[in-house]
């Protein structure tokens, strides 16, 4: 406990005050992966996210649910600065990632995205590349050259994405030759190959059949031990199956955020209850 306190500058300053005032030391809780404070996002004149404050814990699966158009994707994309690829977006408030301000001056969005990866709704393997190239392209273009290391990461990523056994003899085949569900797992392998700390997933299974969906859900459960996962889904069953924490968004606002079990069994807000009981959405 003391060791961790010494390593982290934040808790170190705390320790000094503690010693000075002789207060009993508080057990340090796990630092959240993201501390989002009063976040608002606009597309031109249209406000998509309205004053959201939330702490997303590390090494857990956080689901974001809410009716379509409520700002789930927008919120997710601002956790790795992807939303700014759209023209005329504006952000107010703070997003702290491991204590660092993601929107601070001099922060390189590419460096952020290397640590906070993303998987999209529509699987999108690069069409000119083989299965193997799809997985290693992020490493190669970020400067990793060594053959043996690339091969090692290739196998590791495909294994983690539960795809290795299905493709190990076809690594040279085009990524596009795989089935829809396999393509999505290939995209997950591609995302984790660069060894990010967080994987954001925007409705990763919404275009897949039930069996492929199940595989992805299993995979997400396994990834949890190594990664912080934030998953957007409009499927409440999916949220309750896979996630530890669930956040309910409604017209750009965070209505409720709690342990998944609690949120689905004893929602505090009337809106949440209406939504999870299927009264709208």
């Amino acid at each position, binding site marked *: 406990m003391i060791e961790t306190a010494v390593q982290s500058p934040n808790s170190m300053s705390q320790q000094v005050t503690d010693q000075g005032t002789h207060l009993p030391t508080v057990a340090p809780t796990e630092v959240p992966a993201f501390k989002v404070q009063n976040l608002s996002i606009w597309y031109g004149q249209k406000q998509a996210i309205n004053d959201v404050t939330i702490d997303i814990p590390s090494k857990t699966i956080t689901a974001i649910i809410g009716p379509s158009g409520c700002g789930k994707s927008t919120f997710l994309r601002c956790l790795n600065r992807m939303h700014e690829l759209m023209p005329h977006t504006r952000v107010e408030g703070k997003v702290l990632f491991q204590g660092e301000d993601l929107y601070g001056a001099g922060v390189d969005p590419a460096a952020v*995205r290397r640590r906070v990866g993303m998987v999209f709704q529509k699987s999108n393997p690069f069409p000119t590349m083989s299965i193997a190239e799809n997985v290693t392209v992020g490493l190669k273009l970020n400067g990793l050259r060594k053959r043996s290391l690339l091969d090692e990461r290739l196998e590791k990523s495909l294994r983690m994405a539960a795809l290795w056994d299905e493709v190990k003899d076809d690594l040279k085949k085009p990524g596009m030759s795989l089935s829809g569900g396999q393509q999505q797992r290939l995209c997950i392998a591609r995302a984790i190959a660069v060894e990010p700390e967080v994987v954001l997933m925007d409705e990763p299974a919404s275009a897949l059949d039930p069996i492929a969906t199940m595989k992805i859900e299993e995979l997400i459960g396994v990834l949890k031990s190594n990664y912080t996962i934030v998953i957007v889904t409009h499927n409440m069953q999916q949220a309750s199956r896979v996630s530890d924490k669930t956040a309910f968004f409604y017209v750009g606002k965070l209505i409720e955020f709690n342990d998944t079990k609690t949120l689905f069994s004893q929602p505090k807000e009337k809106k949440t209850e209406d939504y999870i009981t299927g009264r709208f959405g």
Partner: protein
Amino acid sequence: MQSTPGNNRRWRTIKSAIVSALSFIAAILVVAPLGFVFFHLVRSGAGAVNLSFFTQLPKPVGEAGGGMVNAIVGTAELLGIAALIGVPVGVLGGVYLAEYGSARSNRMLRFIADVLNGVPSIIWGVVVYGLVVLRFKSFSAYAGGLSLGLIMIPLIMRTTEEVLLLVPNGYREAALALGISRWKTIVHIVMKTASKGIVTGILLALARVAGETAPLLFTAFGNRFWNHSLREPIAALPLQIFTYAISPYEDWHRQAWAGALVLIVGIFFINIVVRLLTRNPAFRVL
């Protein structure tokens, strides 16, 4: 109801027959000149296309035989210089339009490119004459290649832009989400995905300028001999055809026909390569 269903059907059948007959005639009118030109070229020129046409220099007036090897090589050199100028500028311009430019600057650039595409090619010759030939006091391969390259730029720019815009945004986002920088994403993901389309645009632009004569009159000028330096006037197939065709000599006329045939077959060949690139599923990217 003015007519019975039976009548109505017959009238519709007749209308349909008339329209399809008219479109068939229109289609023939489009294809016929091409067939006619090609047939005429083969009939008048094939006789003079022989080994010496591809291996010998033009003979002085009065002497029979000789060939156009210097013009064939000259055209290749001019196209090479044109490509060195037109391809990088055109492709980078297209990349700017598709990937970087703001809506406002793009509208202006597209308008300029479209205007340039419509400029008569002789104007490019005059411009290069003024800028290069007068300054260096000599017609040259450089000047000829430059005038062709300038024609290629707006052509390549627009086709490159179009094929880059066909690349789905999902690929850009996927690459950027891996922490790959913007320019590497453009070069290694977007342009690679669109590479067949870009190459097609380049080949079509080359095919288009390969037959240009007017801009070369003021720039490359033509040369009856081998040119030993790119700073000297250089022969080109279209120029040679032009010179031979307006000469009073029967023998030169035959050679002009042969040159035209070779030129057309060459351009035809480029178009076939383009077709293969865009059609064969093995090559299909876009």
